[in-house]
C-alpha cells in the first residue's frame, strides 16, 4: 500500500533569491509560461552593425505596417460593391451621376469622413514608398553581394514580396472603380484574353461573365485585403526570422571578419534607433499625404467602358509592364480558326521572365563561381564589376521600359514625336542595357585602379613641395593600416579552368557543354578583363621601402 503519496508538491529547489522588484517578479511569472529568459538571452544584446543603407529594409517593414494600419481603417468605410447608385453627396461636380457603390464610398471617404482623405492618401503614399523601398533595398542587397550563401533563400523571399507588392498595389489601385482604375482592369482583361487556349475561360471566371460584369471589384477586394497581405505577412516574418538567424552582413573594415559581427546592441541603441525610425517614416509619409495629392479619383469620374481620359498611367512600378505592352509591335497570327495575339502575349510572358532572372541570380552566380563558403562581409560594388554591370543593365532596361510606359507624357512634356519615342524604346530595350553594362564595368575597373594607386602611393595631401633641383612634387601620405586593410581585404577569385584535354594516360577527356559554358562565364567574371589585380604586400613594400617613394 502506498498511501504515503503526498498531494503537496514542493517547488523545485531554486538557488535564486526573491526577485528584487515587481518587474522581475512579473518577468519570472511570464518566463514560467513562455520561457522568455532563454529567448532574451540570445537576443536582448544582439549586435546590429550600423550603416545608412541598412535602413532601406526597415523602410519596407515600416511602410508595410503603415499600409496595414490604414488599410484596416479604410475597410471600415469602403464598400466593395459594383451595385449602381446615383451620387448625391458633398462633391457637387458628380451629383446626379451613376456610379458603383465602390466609387461612391471612395468619394465619401475622401469628402465626408473626417480624416478619411488623409488616411486614403497615407495608404496610397505608403504603398508607393513600400514598393520603391523594396526596389532600392533589393538593389542594395544585389550590388553588395549580400544575397550570397547563406542568404539565397532570403533573397527569394524578398523577391516574392516585391512581386506580391506589385500585384497588391495594382489591385488596390483598381478598387475605387474610377475611370483610370477601370482602364487598368480593362488592360488586364485584354492581357488575359491574349493567353492561348484558356484565356477566354480565365477571363469569364475572373470577371464572372463578359467584361466588366459586377464581380470583379468584390473579388479584387478579397484578394487585396486578405489573400495577398496574408501571404506577404507570412513571407515577411520568415524574411525577418532569417535576417535574425543569419545575423546582419557588414562592410569590410578593421576588426570586422567573416566570423564576427560588429555593431551596437539591440537594447537599447538599436531599439531606440529602429523604433524611432518607424515614427520618422510614418511622420514623413503623413506630411507627404497632407501636402501632395495622389490619385484624386474624384477628378477622373466613375468608370465606363466607353470613356477614357488621356495620359492613362498605372502607378510607376507597373510602368515597365505598361512599357512592354506599348512598344511591342502588334503581331497577330490567325490560322485554323484561331488567333494568337503575340503583340500582347509576348509582353505578358516577358514581364515574369524579366523578374525571374532576378530571382535566380544568386543561384546563377553561385554556380559560376562554384563558391560553397558563407559570406558575411559585403562586396564593394566596384570589386564585382560584372555583377554591378548586370545590375546597372537591368535598371537601364527598367528605365527604358518605364519611358515607353509614359511615352504619351514624355511626348507632351518634351514636345517629341510619340512615334519616335516608341521606336527609340523598341531599339533601346536591346541596345541600352548592353551599353550600360560595358560602361558600368569599365567604371568599376577604373575605381579598382584608383584604389590600387591609393594603397600603393598613399593619398594626395594637397601639399606641394619644391625639390632642391627645382622640381615640384605633391606629397602623398601613407594610409593608416585600417584603411589599407579595408582596401585590400576583398577576394579576387581565379576563373575556373577547364581540365586538360587529355588525362594523364593520354585519353581524351570529355568536357560537357555545361562545363565549357561555366568556364567561359567564369572567365568573363574573374578573367583578365573582369578585375584589376589588387596590390600585394610585396608591391607595397617595394614602393614604401625607400627609393621611388614620393
Amino acid at each position, binding site marked *: 500500500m502506498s498511501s504515503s503519496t503526498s498531494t503537496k508538491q514542493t517547488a523545485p529547489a531554486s538557488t535564486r533569491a526573491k526577485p528584487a522588484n515587481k518587474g522581475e517578479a512579473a518577468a519570472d511569472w511570464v518566463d514560467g509560461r513562455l520561457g522568455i529568459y532563454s529567448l532574451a538571452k540570445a537576443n536582448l544584446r544582439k549586435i546590429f552593425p550600423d550603416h545608412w543603407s541598412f535602413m532601406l529594409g526597415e523602410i519596407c517593414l515600416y511602410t508595410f505596417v503603415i499600409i496595414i494600419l490604414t488599410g484596416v481603417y479604410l475597410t471600415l468605410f469602403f464598400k466593395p460593391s459594383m451595385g449602381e447608385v446615383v451620387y448625391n453627396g458633398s462633391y457637387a461636380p458628380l451629383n446626379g451621376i451613376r456610379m458603383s457603390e465602390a466609387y461612391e464610398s471612395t468619394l465619401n471617404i475622401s469628402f465626408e469622413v473626417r480624416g478619411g482623405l488623409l488616411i486614403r492618401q497615407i495608404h496610397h503614399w505608403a504603398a508607393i514608398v513600400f514598393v520603391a523601398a523594396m526596389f532600392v533595398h533589393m538593389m542594395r542587397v544585389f550590388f553588395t553581394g549580400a544575397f550570397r550563401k547563406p542568404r539565397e533563400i532570403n533573397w527569394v523571399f524578398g523577391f516574392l514580396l516585391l512581386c506580391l507588392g506589385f500585384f497588391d498595389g495594382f489591385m488596390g489601385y483598381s478598387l475605387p472603380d474610377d475611370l483610370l482604375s477601370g482602364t487598368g482592369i480593362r488592360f488586364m482583361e*485584354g492581357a488575359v484574353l491574349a493567353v492561348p487556349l484558356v484565356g477566354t475561360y480565365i477571363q469569364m471566371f475572373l470577371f464572372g461573365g*463578359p467584361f466588366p460584369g459586377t464581380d470583379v471589384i468584390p473579388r479584387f477586394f478579397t484578394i487585396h485585403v486578405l489573400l495577398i497581405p496574408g501571404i506577404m505577412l507570412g513571407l515577411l516574418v520568415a524574411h525577418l526570422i532569417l535576417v535574425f538567424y543569419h545575423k546582419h552582413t557588414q562592410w569590410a573594415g578593421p576588426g570586422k571578419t567573416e566570423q564576427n559581427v560588429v555593431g551596437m546592441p539591440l537594447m537599447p541603441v538599436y531599439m531606440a534607433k529602429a523604433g524611432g525610425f518607424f515614427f520618422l517614416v510614418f511622420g514623413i509619409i503623413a506630411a507627404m499625404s497632407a501636402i501632395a495629392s495622389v490619385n484624386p479619383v474624384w477628378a477622373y469620374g466613375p468608370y465606363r467602358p466607353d470613356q477614357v481620359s488621356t495620359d492613362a498611367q498605372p502607378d510607376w512600378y507597373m510602368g515597365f509592364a505598361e512599357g512592354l505592352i506599348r512598344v511591342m509591335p502588334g503581331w497577330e497570327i490567325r490560322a485554323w480558326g484561331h488567333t494568337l495575339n503575340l503583340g500582347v502575349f509576348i509582353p505578358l510572358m516577358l514581364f515574369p521572365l524579366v523578374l525571374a532572372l532576378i530571382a535566380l541570380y544568386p543561384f546563377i552566380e553561385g554556380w559560376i563561381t562554384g563558391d560553397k563558403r558563407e559570406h558575411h562581409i559585403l562586396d564593394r560594388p566596384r570589386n564585382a564589376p560584372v555583377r554591378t554591370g548586370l545590375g546597372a543593365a537591368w535598371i537601364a532596361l527598367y528605365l527604358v521600359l518605364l519611358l515607353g510606359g509614359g511615352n504619351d507624357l514624355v511626348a507632351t512634356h518634351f514636345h517629341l514625336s510619340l512615334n519616335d519615342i516608341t521606336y527609340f524604346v523598341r531599339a533601346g530595350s536591346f541596345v541600352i542595357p548592353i551599353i550600360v553594362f560595358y560602361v558600368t564595368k569599365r567604371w568599376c575597373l577604373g575605381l579598382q585602379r584608383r584604389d590600387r594607386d591609393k594603397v600603393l602611393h598613399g593619398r594626395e595631401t594637397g601639399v606641394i613641395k619644391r625639390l632642391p633641383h627645382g622640381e615640384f612634387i605633391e606629397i602623398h601620405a601613407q594610409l593608416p593600416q585600417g584603411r589599407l586593410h579595408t582596401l585590400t581585404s576583398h577576394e579576387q577569385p581565379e576563373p575556373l579552368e577547364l581540365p586538360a584535354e587529355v588525362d594523364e594516360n593520354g585519353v581524351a577527356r570529355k568536357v560537357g557543354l555545361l562545363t565549357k559554358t561555366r568556364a567561359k562565364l567564369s572567365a568573363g567574371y574573374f578573367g583578365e578583363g573582369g578585375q584589376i589585380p589588387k596590390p600585394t604586400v610585396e608591391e607595397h613594400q617595394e614602393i614604401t621601402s625607400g627609393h621611388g617613394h614620393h
Partner: protein
Amino acid sequence: MSHDNISDDKLPEAHDASEGHGHLAVADDPFADPGLPAHEPRRTDIDERAAKRAERQVSGMFILSMLATVGFIASYASINPDKLVYIFPLGHVSALNFALGMTLAVALFCIGAGAVHWARTLMSDVEMPAERHPIEADDEVRADVIQQFKTGAAESGFGRRKMIRNTLIGSMAMVPLSGVVLLRDLGPLPEKKLDSTDWSEATPSAPIRLVNMNTDEPMKAEDIVVGSLTFAKPGPSALRPNGLQDSDEDFQEAIAKDALMLIRIQPEDLKDEKSAALGFEGVLCYSKICTHVGCPISLYEQQTHHALCPCHQSTFDLSDGARVIFGPAGHPLPQLKISTDSDGYLVATQDFTVPVGPSFWERSA
C-alpha cells in the same frame, strides 16, 4: 569627434582590450587587420552640460509630439470638411486634410526624432563584436540526423511497400483537383459571348437606330460633319424598347462592346472601297473599342483621319478601313455597316462582321 583640447583626466577610461578595441598594427604585414579602432568619446560622453542639453532636446521633441496630437484632435473637432484654404505653393487644399496631416506628421516624426537623437547622443556608441557561428551542422550531427531519418524511413516501410507509396503519391496529386473544380462556378463558359454585340439584334426588317451618346437622339447623315467625331450607342430594339440606357442593369457590359464612333470623310479621301461601301454617303461607323486590349478610342485627327487610343497609342487610319498604322494593336477596328431607315435616320441592319475588342484565342476573323 576631436578631443584634442580635453585633458586626459576628463576622458573616460579606455575600453578593455578584450572587447577587441585598439589592437596594434601587425608590423610585417601592412594589409593585416589591425582590429577594432579605439572608441572615441562623444561630446556628450565627456561634457555633462552637453548631455543635459541633449536630454532637454529629446524631451522637447516628445513634448512637441504631445502638443501636435492635441492639435490633431482640435483640428478634427473644429474644422469643417468642406473648408478650403490657400497654402503656398500647394494652392487651394482641404483645410481639414492639411491640418490633420501636418499635426499627425509632427506628432509621429517628433517621437522618432527624439528616440533617434537619444540613441545617438546619450546611449552608448561603443561598437562591440559578436561571434558568428556557421549555419551548417558539423559532420557528427549531420551523420546522426541522416541515421535517424533512415531509421524512421525504414520503420515506415515507405521504400519497401511500393504499392502504398505510389497510390499515396497518386492520391496526393489528385486531391487538389477538387479545389480547381470548385472554382468552376466563378463564371460562365465563354461560348460565343465575345463574338457578338447588341447590334446582332438588328436585321433588315428590324433595323436599330444609331443614337447620339450625348443627346440621346437618333441621327441623320447630315448631322455628321466632316472632321467631327461622334459617339453613338444602340437605339430602341425588340430587346431594349428604350434603347441602351445608363440605368439598364447590364449597361456596363453592353457599352463595353456596343460603343460606336462616327466620322465623315470626303469621298475622294476614302482609300478602301470595301470600307466605303459599309458606310453611308461618306459617313463611316467603327467600333470605339480598341482591338489591342479594349480601351475606348477617343482621339481623332481630322486632317489625317487617324484615330489614336490614348492608353497604348495604337493608331488607326479610319479612311483606310481602320488599318493599324502604328502601335501595338494587331488588327483593324471592326466596322459597322450602316444605312438609313424610311425616316432618314442612320441605322444598322446587322452586327459587326468580326468580334469587337481585344483578340482572343477562339477569334476566327
